[in-house]
């Protein structure tokens, strides 16, 4: 009889409950099948092996070799994955710098591969469209301002436009209207990209000759002696600014 008589209610309805064959008749093949199936578990137990007999006798099992191998394989696999991730991260310079140095040194010493310890050079950004030299801002090969085009437009009132004209033309005439500002300021702007101070002279001189930025001539003219365009740009800006104040 089953230990779970209640659970067998649904099987009982089909005549499959153990012992139900007496009620339903021995001819029921389903009952016969289930009786034989149950009889499979009613036989004697198999003879235990030597290992099991020792265990049944109270012996303490050693740590299973299979479990030991499984643990070793698992640990090795995890270590290999971690090592791989670390080396890949070091090769792509993604690690913090102390770890990067350590891993790079280890890889360089122990393996035939080489990982540079320096950080990669930052990419040089392409010049923005606004910084690209326009045809009117192409650098002139000579340091002296050479007029490339006659001035066709009259200077407008704004100091910026004045300066641009002055810077472009490189003529002291841009300071005709007495605005040293424009010359100085815009000369600086144009020289920041291209003019290497050639047009600076125009602006600075204009300011100086007109008296607007006399005191600023010194610093703004210094880029002439300095080959660095960036410095000249800074200096010219300051010169221009002072000139503007002087004008005001």
């Amino acid at each position: 009889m089953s230990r779970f008589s209640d659970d067998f209610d649904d099987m009982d309805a089909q005549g499959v409950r153990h012992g139900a064959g007496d009620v339903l008749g021995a001819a029921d093949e389903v009952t016969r099948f289930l009786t034989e199936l149950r009889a499979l578990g009613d036989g004697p137990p198999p003879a235990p092996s030597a290992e099991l007999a020792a265990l049944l006798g109270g012996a303490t099992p050693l740590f299973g070799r299979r479990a030991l191998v499984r643990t070793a394989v698992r640990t090795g696999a995890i270590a290999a994955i971690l090592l791989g991730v670390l080396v890949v991260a070091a090769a792509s310079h993604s690690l913090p710098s102390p770890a990067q140095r350590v891993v790079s040194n280890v890889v360089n010493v122990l393996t035939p591969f080489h990982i540079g310890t320096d950080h990669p050079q930052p990419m040089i950004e392409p010049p923005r469209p606004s910084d690209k030299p326009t045809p009117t801002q192409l650098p002139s090969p000579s340091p002296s301002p050479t007029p490339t085009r006659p001035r066709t437009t009259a200077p407008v009132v704004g100091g910026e436009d004045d300066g641009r004209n002055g810077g472009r033309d490189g003529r002291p005439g841009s300071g005709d209207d007495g605005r040293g500002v424009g010359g100085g300021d815009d000369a600086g702007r144009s020289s920041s990209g291209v003019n290497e101070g050639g047009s600076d002279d125009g602006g600075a001189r204009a300011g100086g000759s007109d008296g607007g930025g006399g005191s600023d001539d010194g610093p703004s003219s210094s880029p002439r002696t300095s080959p660095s365009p960036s410095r000249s740009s800074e200096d010219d800006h300051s010169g221009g600014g002072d000139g503007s104040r002087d004008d005001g």
Partner: protein
Amino acid sequence: MHIGCEEAVSRPELTDELVAAAAAGDPDARGAIYQALAPQVLGYLKARGVDDPEAVTNDVFLQLLPQLGKVTGGGEGVRRLTFTIARARMVDAARARSRSAPTVPYQPESDARTVGSAEDAAHAALSLARVQAVLDVLPDDQRDVLTLRVVADLSIEQVAAIMGRSVGAVKQLQRRGMVAIRQALAERRVTL
């Protein structure tokens, strides 16, 4: 302790006290647990067509006995763990059999281990063959449910826990399995 005899022996009851004594290392309690559960494990493995059910039964208890101290639920917990291990070993054996070369059928005349009357052995072999022929009609999960329910004498909840299925799913598998067996026997596709 008398283990491995050919006659059917009275099966000790699997009580919580017995399990506690076995977990404490009592050899008699361990032997009693083996006597109580090994026949059903052997029958389950036979019904599922494991090639060497006696050896796999030994493996099941080699894995079970060291874990007795960690089992919760007393006797029923031990029974459930035993058949959980047995089912896992059965699946392992089935996979190994599918990977290995086909084996030759059993030849009783070359097996000197047989003890007991030839009639009993022949009857048992015939009975097992008939049962397996009927079980072969069923899909694998239905076969699993019926063998665990009938041979291992487990409740639906225990079978559900062992198979990792819901109680409702196990009930459904059992019902479908019984309907399929009844149809197969009625249509004489298999005979007992």
